[in-house]
């Protein structure tokens, strides 16, 4: 099955919906192929091949929004499902006290493809096996390898394809191949354990493997994990300065800036699931951080995991400045939230699959780089901790009360990195965190993540990132 064969079904659905009285209609053929491979402690697990296409139909009747989906891809089924969707919207409109409206965003006509030099289809069928085999070999031969008792290594490649049309004239075709790695390494010695979860991913062709430098990265993390297990001592508690690595800066930006600035959460739509926000519809301009707090989300970054230059409502997207000099600058919007709040849509609507409704999502969320070098940032710290990687993290559903537990973390004394410290806990409110930012380094690095939201749940690929970020006067805890 391929995308071209299925486009007619999207046009059929759109026509049936419009003829049946839908005020707005869209149809999205969405699917692709995937290939996955796993090693558990060096032992092969079943290889996985996936092949999936379906159609998602979304429409508005009498102000009520309805969404339906199927992978039974024949004209009769799609026609019947579209009619049922119209009926469903009309039947439920009595409960829709607030009518759904879409703004007048310009409908895109585009065909975008994530750049790929070597197409995924051309891969040797055994390439993921060879990749993981080499990672396994390196991890089991790195410095201190005998302590790495357990390893889960998973590599997968996918090609996501979409064809979207709507009654406002959008017509968007896309192809985004991705490579993804997930690993859990467990080091054990004298009854003590340490564990590192590693996630890497980006869009692109086979060349992404070399670009990501996966083999060396995982080997490096394995050796560090053993160091942490053997050498990490007690972290300081009380008020100190903290330098967050790009990995920590990125997760904090994603959790406590990106999520609370999703306009659908602010308007209450995710209230029973992912929650709401500490911000309100009128919070634009509110000071939530120091002048050094600058956070953005950019779906147009080439190679990125969250590459989506045209969104799933058929609107061209752009970089969004979420926080500028400590003030809330803009929310993430789709056509409905921008209409409701009377502002401009910035096209953040994304869907993970044909059977998932497009909703407001982040893409690649990051702290903007500054002008320090890492050494200059270090020199600012008399007594503190450098948190380079993290394990446990969570945040409340208003995105105000968050926690990050460090894994690879070092004491800083008088501007110099000192010994490893074990599991420092940064448990802090959102304004306290971003209000304490004093400096940022020049570099910008990204990590892959899978962001969960929606009902049914949608785990969507994103990047999180940033520079090194200096926080001043933070109370740290320990586990």
């Amino acid at each position, binding site marked *: 099955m391929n995308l071209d064969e299925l486009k007619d079904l999207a046009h059929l659905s759109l026509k049936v919906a419009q003829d049946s009285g839908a005020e707005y209609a869209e149809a999205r053929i969405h699917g692709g192929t995937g290939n996955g491979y796993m090693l558990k402690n060096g032992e092969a697990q079943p290889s996985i091949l996936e*092949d999936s296409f379906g159609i998602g139909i979304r429409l508005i009747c009498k102000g009520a929004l309805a969404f*339906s989906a199927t*992978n039974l891809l024949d004209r009769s089924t799609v026609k019947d499902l579209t009619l049922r969707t119209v009926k469903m919207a009309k039947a439920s409109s009595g409960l829709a006290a607030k009518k759904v409206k879409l703004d007048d965003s310009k409908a895109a006509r585009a065909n975008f493809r994530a750049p790929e030099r070597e197409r995924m289809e051309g891969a040797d069928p055994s390439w993921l096996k060879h990749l993981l085999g080499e990672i396994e070999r390196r991890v089991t031969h790195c410095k201190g390898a005998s302590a790495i008792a357990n390893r889960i290594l998973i590599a997968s490649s996918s090609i996501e394809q979409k064809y979207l049309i709507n009654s406002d004239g959008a017509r968007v075709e896309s192809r985004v191949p991705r490579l993804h790695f997930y690993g859990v390494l467990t080091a054990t010695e004298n009854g003590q354990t340490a564990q590192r979860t590693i996630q890497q991913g980006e869009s692109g062709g086979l060349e992404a493997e070399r670009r990501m430098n996966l083999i060396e990265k995982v080997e490096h993390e394995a050796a560090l994990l053993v160091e942490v297990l053997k050498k990490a001592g007690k972290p300081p508690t009380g008020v100190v300065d903290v330098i967050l690595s790009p990995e920590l800066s990125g997760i904090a930006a994603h959790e406590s800036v990106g999520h609370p600035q999703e306009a659908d959460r602010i308007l209450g739509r995710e209230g029973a699931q992912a929650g709401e926000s500490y911000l309100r519809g009128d919070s634009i301009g509110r000071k939530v951080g120091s002048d050094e707090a600058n956070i953005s989300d950019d779906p147009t970054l080439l190679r990125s995991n969250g590459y989506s230059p045209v969104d799933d409502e058929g609107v061209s997207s752009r970089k969004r400045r979420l926080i500028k000099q400590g003030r809330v600058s803009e929310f993430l919007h789709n056509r409905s939230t921008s209409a409701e709040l009377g502002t401009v849509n910035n096209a953040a609507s994304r869907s993970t699959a044909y059977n998932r409704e497009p909703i407001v999502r982040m893409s690649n969320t990051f702290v903007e780089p500054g002008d320090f070098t890492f050494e200059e940032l270090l020199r600012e710290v008399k007594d503190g901790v450098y948190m380079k990687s993290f394990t446990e993290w969570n945040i409340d559903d208003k995105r105000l009360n968050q926690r990050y537990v460090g894994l690879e973390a070092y004491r800083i004394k008088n501007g110099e990195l000192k010994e490893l410290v074990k599991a420092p806990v940064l448990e802090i409110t959102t304004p306290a965190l971003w209000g304490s930012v004093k400096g940022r380094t020049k570099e910008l690095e990204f990590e892959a993540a899978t962001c969960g939201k929606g009902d049914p749940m949608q785990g969507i690929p994103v990047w999180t990132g940033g520079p090194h970020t200096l926080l001043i006067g933070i109370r740290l805890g320990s586990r």
Partner: protein
Amino acid sequence: MDHQHVNETVVREAKKLGADDAISLSAVSDEQMVRFANNSLTVAKRITETGLLVYLTKNKRRVVGASSNPEESSVKGFLQKLFKSLKGLPAEPNYSPLPTKRSRYGPAGGFDGKIAEVENEISEFARESIDAASRAGAARSAGAIEASLASCYLMTSTGIEGHDKRSKILLNIRSFLDHESSGHGLSCSSTLAGFRPGEAGRRAGEDAKKMANPKRPEQGEYGILMSPTVASNLIALVGDFSSAFSVDAGTSYLAGKLGEKVASSVFTLKDHGWIRGGLGGRAFDDEGSPTQSTTIIERGVLKSYLHNLTTSKKFKTKSTGNAGWIEPNPWNLEVSAGDSAFDELVGEMRKGIILTSNWYTRFTNYRTGEFSTVPRDGAYLVEKGEVKGALNGLRVSDTLERIFSSVRSMSESREWIEWWEVHTPTLCPWVLVDGVKVTRAYG
């Protein structure tokens, strides 16, 4: 689609290709949903799907394929692609062939076809729940009702056939008094007769009202009374950690503890392939083994991990009927009932907190079970057996083993829980735990 025909085609073509073992598992599902927020419908959904999962083996090599387009014309090509991919794989040391005893499984029971007919009622259920919450004091409510039916058909190359069908209807409602005060209600049932949208709405509304003017707690150790919703979130994780795959992978705190005390003597945990009222499960697993009831923890002692054929070979035991072709998984978890009423549990607490809902449970280390989770909605401070007020801004930070080893008592009443934060259906009481570490954020 004729699932029997698809399965026969898959098994026949797999044999022709030279597979040692083959399994075809085809499924069809129909899911209806309404979602609401601010007392108003936000979207109505209907997802109708079919799917085909294929398992092939050759010379101790295994591959799994998933296709959402199982038409006969495409099945052959899909199988050829799968079979070809086997050649590049290494042999698996713990490979185990499929059972050879011919078996035929029928539906385990508990299916309610009436759930298919809620198309016209589902919005009314939402209205009933919202109205009940409003009457109880809520200013506004958000939530979702999901009504779903699923059928699956299994056929193996060794002569095992199975068919089962499941039904369930789930409501998750969250009510708000203001931005600081909220309550949560669930109704989870495999039958329409057992669905209680009004009751769930009333609970959410009452808790929202009781949560007015919450205060942040002092950090420290508290007795914690976990609602079935909160306890199920942690117990479903214990169920995942009891998977032999997780144990072998070093991602389970239960590794190496068979026969050891891992919980309080009042705590027993079982997994059931099928149980009356259960929201999941069936009579056979994905490898064609019969499902069963497995005691994971009995009076605090770890009795068994959950196995499929591959893990059972490695652990030198028998499959517990929990396959998963890659990893075994629990079907329906059941925690033993206690002997206390809710008021008696509250009365036992000297310095404690009642938690009604939580989310975002994450681990420092799966091997040690160190985790934290974020309570939300109704949370109440208890002193000397009396509720003293509402709390927010707290976090539970502890280890799973210490928590379940410190269970003092549990309620006689139990509820089925499955929602956004609990994916394995769990029958669970209120659970009172001593000395749990509670933290709060700086700033």
